[in-house]
């Protein structure tokens, strides 16, 4: 970006994205961006980010009934009188978050106490995938029974995804606790005996998320939430492979 041909500086790109430029300067930068898609993409990303940040904080710009009193008043109340307000604010915030669904499920790790699903998943993988004789409770030979049993215990109809196209076949499954309630762990392996686990848990809300990666000590996990279930695939495989697997799972869990 510092070549001689380039009359547009980094600062000018920011100023352009922020709409802080004189009209003639804007024309010059716009022409530069038309010829430089990489810079154009950065500027577009900053603008999107600006919009997202503004939207994020917009709800806080509110007037409140007590505002005028705060300005007129003989300064503040003593701390002891402000404490209940702080507590009330915390409760209100929590309530709002819960009511609007934006208080994130503990699955995603928002709560300070709950173990996020990607940790539960990589832990389950680490414990069960290396079991030689008892990796599962119900083997793939009884697949129909396995799926029916786990669906019943979860309270959600699940399937055991067919991952043959990725080279993995079902080993079996077991009932496991996920976030304190019944969840399901399905295990797959490839021809070389390399294993993967798919952890399923019920969520309190029908929230959908993107796929997100997490790694922990060589174990890669890809997790997401979709239509009332939280999913996490763990294994000692590449992220590309994990993504292929997750894609397959995601498609096969498509609601009928």
């Amino acid at each position, binding site marked *: 970006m510092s070549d001689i041909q380039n009359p547009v500086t*980094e*600062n000018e790109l*920011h*100023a352009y994205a*922020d709409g*802080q430029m004189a009209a003639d300067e804007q024309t010059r930068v716009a022409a530069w961006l038309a010829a430089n898609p990489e810079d154009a993409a950065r500027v577009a*990303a900053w603008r999107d*980010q*600006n919009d*997202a*940040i*503004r*939207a*994020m*904080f*917009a*709800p*806080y*710009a*509110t*007037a*409140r009934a007590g*505002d*005028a009193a*705060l*300005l007129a008043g003989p*300064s*503040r109340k003593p701390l002891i009188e*402000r404490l209940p*307000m*702080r507590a009330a*604010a*915390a409760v*209100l*915030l*929590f309530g*709002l*978050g819960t009511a*609007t*669904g*934006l*208080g*994130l499920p503990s699955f*995603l790790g*928002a709560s*300070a106490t709950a173990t996020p699903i990607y940790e539960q998943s990589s832990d389950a993988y680490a414990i069960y995938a290396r079991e030689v004789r008892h990796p599962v409770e119900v083997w793939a030979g009884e697949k129909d029974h396995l799926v029916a049993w786990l669906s019943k215990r979860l309270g959600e109809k699940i399937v055991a995804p067919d991952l043959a196209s990725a080279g993995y076949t079902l080993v079996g499954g077991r009932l496991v606790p996920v976030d304190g309630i019944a969840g399901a762990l399905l295990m797959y392996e490839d021809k070389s005996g390399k294993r993967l686990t798919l952890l399923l848990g019920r969520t309190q809300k029908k*929230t*959908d*998320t*993107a*796929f*997100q*990666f997490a790694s922990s000590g060589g174990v890669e996990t890809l997790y*997401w*939430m*979709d239509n009332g279930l939280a999913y996490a695939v763990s294994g000692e495989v590449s992220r590309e492979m994990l*993504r292929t697997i997750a894609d397959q799972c*995601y*498609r096969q869990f*498509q609601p009928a």
Partner: protein
Amino acid sequence: MSQSPEPIKDRPKERGFGDAGPQTFERGMLDLMPSLRRYARSLTRSDADGEDLLQDSLERALTKRGQWAGSNLKAWAFSIMTNLYRNETVRAARRRTQPIEDAESVPASLSPPGDPLEQRRLVAAIDSLAPDFRSVLMLVVVESMSYREVATLLQIPEGTVMSRLARARAQISRYLDADNVIPLRRSE
């Protein structure tokens, strides 16, 4: 929580707080309250701490009222809040304690709909910024101030405003690292 009228919706620098006369101090401050509240919340990352910072700033503004030169009330009020926040940050860093409500400090209520995971990642990315970078980003992006206004308000050169802004954005981008997240797609 009702969405109240937003008095500083347009670019504030064009609204001429500068011509606020002496009688309009209260009126001007009252008009600034929503955006001061938002700025306080964006700096502190918690509703309760934001409200405390707002009250502290108002108290300071009232006692220092005589020092207000009658020029830009918004810049003056925002600089009081920024300075209080900086001092408080220094104190908090020494204390090393975290208020309990911080665990629930994800933006609540009227946030736009969208992928909650994406929102949470952006919140976390912004939370990861150092105080000086956070205040520049918030003043430019959320409060729509010009680079020059921010420079004056923070008493730093305009070039420093630019470099902090650039570094804040770079850090957010790194944090969001697009490789880590793949949008869901069922049909392909």
